[in-house]
């Protein structure tokens, strides 16, 4: 697969150069204004503002208006509504992977396969913004890991080792609890934070059942009936039943979770590594105390990282300034833009642009993360990047399982049901 990808990338680079030469002939005479729609996460806004500022300085004839929208489900809603009514604007930021597949890229986006900068993009990212054999996006911000953020100081104080199996993890939790600290932080007020035990366990699922993603997409494998896949739900229920959660898990927010972790009040927070940005803003002193490990499974030898791809930047095919928009996207996909993002929000993980490099002294979380990527077979993309099927209600289901409202088996079965509607909506074969 990798070889095939490489050839494709090389090919597209060649084609792109020729095309670029043709396009750049008639210069953009008058000033154009582009709109850029992004989510309102402070990291996204800070990084985008910095990049856009530099872009406008370099291209005085192009003005970029940043417009923000809410993130999460509300954001999906707005993006879909705007796309279907032709009001998305020129350039927009949206998830890669299964959510990208759900917004019908062939119909709404400009094909960027032939852009010269694609040669500098990691094939692993190109994969998750490809539909019908064409590449539609450029990466914005960095790859992430889904696993456990932990307080290194607390680990050192209690003499704990990073767990490689679920049993070790639970043993650590017991000791942390005995020491009067919160072993596992959960923050169900922000429901999306509840999904990590299930989604972040996918490396372990595919290690046990290598064909799961494929079978799952084809409606042959189910979470409820695949023991390895059910594990994530069970783990979520385990930590609740053992009384390892913070007392206010139902009302705590993502912010609260990070604060508890940074202050050492809590030891583990299952989360995506992009949280580093928020820690850097709110508790810059704590960054050196926070480490990261992948969610442990049953087999220490097969432990690895479930990786998330960053969102993509796309051009709407309703845009009247495609040339200017392409310039902006090309700039975002450049090394210069990576450096600007690092300057704005710090290094949070590996970039998907090949020529981008991280600064030498990265926070421990990032080096922990990088170690998985560097190890052969140490990381695998999350399910949503290898299958277009993702049910919309997972976060509510994991909240219920994680609060003891619903059993893991019922939760998994409910999620299988939830997924069905979405697969039918996509018109996938076999559903």
């Amino acid at each position, binding site marked *: 697969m990798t070889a095939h990808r490489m050839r494709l990338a090389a090919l597209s680079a060649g084609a792109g150069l020729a095309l670029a030469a043709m396009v750049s002939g008639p210069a953009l005479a008058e000033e154009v204004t582009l709109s850029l729609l992004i989510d309102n996460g402070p990291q996204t806004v800070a990084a985008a503002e910095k990049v856009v500022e530099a872009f406008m300085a370099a291209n005085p004839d192009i003005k970029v208006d940043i417009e923000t929208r809410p993130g999460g489900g509300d954001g999906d809603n707005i993006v879909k509504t705007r796309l279907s009514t032709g009001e998305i604007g020129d350039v927009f930021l949206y998830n890669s992977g299964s959510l990208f597949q759900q917004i019908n890229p062939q119909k709404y986006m400009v094909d960027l396969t032939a852009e010269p900068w694609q040669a500098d993009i990691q094939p692993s990212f190109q994969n998750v913004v490809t539909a019908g054999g064409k590449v539609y996006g450029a990466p914005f911000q960095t790859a992430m890991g889904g696993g456990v953020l932990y307080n290194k100081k607390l680990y050192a104080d209690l003499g704990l080792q990073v767990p490689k199996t679920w049993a070790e993890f639970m043993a650590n939790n017991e000791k942390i609890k005995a020491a009067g600290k919160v072993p596992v932080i959960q923050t169900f007020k922000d429901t999306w934070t509840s999904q990590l035990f299930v989604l972040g366990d996918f490396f372990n699922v595919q290690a046990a059942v290598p064909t799961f993603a494929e079978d799952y997409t084809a409606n042959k494998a189910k979470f409820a009936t695949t023991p390895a896949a059910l594990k994530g739900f069970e783990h979520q229920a385990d930590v609740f039943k053992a009384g390892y959660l913070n*007392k206010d898990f139902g009302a705590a927010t993502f912010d609260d979770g990070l604060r508890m972790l940074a202050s050492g009040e809590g030891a583990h927070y299952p989360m995506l590594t992009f949280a580093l940005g928020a820690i850097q803003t709110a508790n810059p002193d704590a960054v050196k105390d926070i480490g990261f490990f992948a969610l442990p499974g049953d087999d220490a030898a097969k432990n690895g990282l479930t990786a998330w791809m960053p969102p993509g930047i796309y051009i709407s095919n309703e845009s009247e300034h495609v040339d200017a928009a392409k310039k902006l996207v090309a700039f975002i996909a450049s090394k210069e833009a990576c450096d600007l993002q690092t300057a704005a929000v710090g290094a949070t993980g590996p970039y998907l642009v090949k020529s981008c490099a991280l600064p030498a002294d990265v926070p421990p979380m990032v080096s922990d993360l990088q170690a998985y990527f560097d190890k052969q077979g140490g990381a695998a993309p999350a399910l949503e990047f290898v299958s277009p099927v993702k049910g919309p209600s997972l976060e509510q289901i994991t909240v219920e399982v994680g*609060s003891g409202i619903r059993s893991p088996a019922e939760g998994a079965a409910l999620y299988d049901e939830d997924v069905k509607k979405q697969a039918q*909506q996509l018109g996938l074969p076999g559903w």
Partner: protein
Amino acid sequence: MTSLAASPAIGADRVRRRAVRTVYPNWFYLPAAVIYAVLFLFPTVASLFFSLTRWTLSEATFIGLDNFRQFFREPFLIQGLVNTLIYAVVTSGLKVVLGLLLGVLLTSEIIARDYLRSVVFFPVLVSTVGVGITFTVLMHPTGGLINQSLAAIGIEGPGWLTDPRFALLSVALVDVWKGVGLATVIYIAGIVSIPRDYYEAALIDGAGALQRFWNVTLPLARPATVTVVILSLIGGLRSFDLIWSMTRGGPGFTSDVIASVIYKQYQAGFYGLSTAGNVVLFVLVALMVVPLSAVLNRREVAR
């Protein structure tokens, strides 16, 4: 009033017939009808078609009544239905009771009456989203003001919004907090309009305060009650903003109401399904409100 209307009956009749044609022209409907038809009726009717399709916004495949079947199979629909009814009944019931009591209180001769009227009414004016955010913070199970105050007097408060048993009712209480001012004002208007003679007659008959309330205020404030019930019932059945900003239907699905189930379907991109849900919601609310409003209309005619 009755005697006045009865005496010049014949002359008035003729005037009335001419009047109906010339001074109550049907074109008065027109401007409102145009706006309403174009921006509400037409899109709504158009959407009914999509409730019969699998609709991805870019294309619609006709699938007959499948969406309705699917919607009724939604695992959370039954719970959503029950929650919707509980929410509507609790909020409108409390608004009637509290609104009436406050209405009586605030029409009696008490100190600081103007201040109290203002303060009760003020939440009506504040943004729902703002109220939702504020009370979410106040109802935090450990750090929230409510439970900290309870802890100070030795009571361990519940997880208002995080305990599945309380979440829906907590939101309903906030809804009442925000909406009781309007009910109160409607009641004040109703109570003030009750002629003094009735109370004086009741006093002469030796009725106590409670009897006066029961035999005079309550029956004669009935139009106000009907208005409060209808308005809060419709509001309660359709309620969405507050629930969404406080619990998003959670924890899990436990405080989902029909409107939030529909919204989540829409959010997930199941447009046909969510439109079918709208139709179901319409039928449900109509089934409850039409009989009630018929009662209201009959009373009007009777008078």
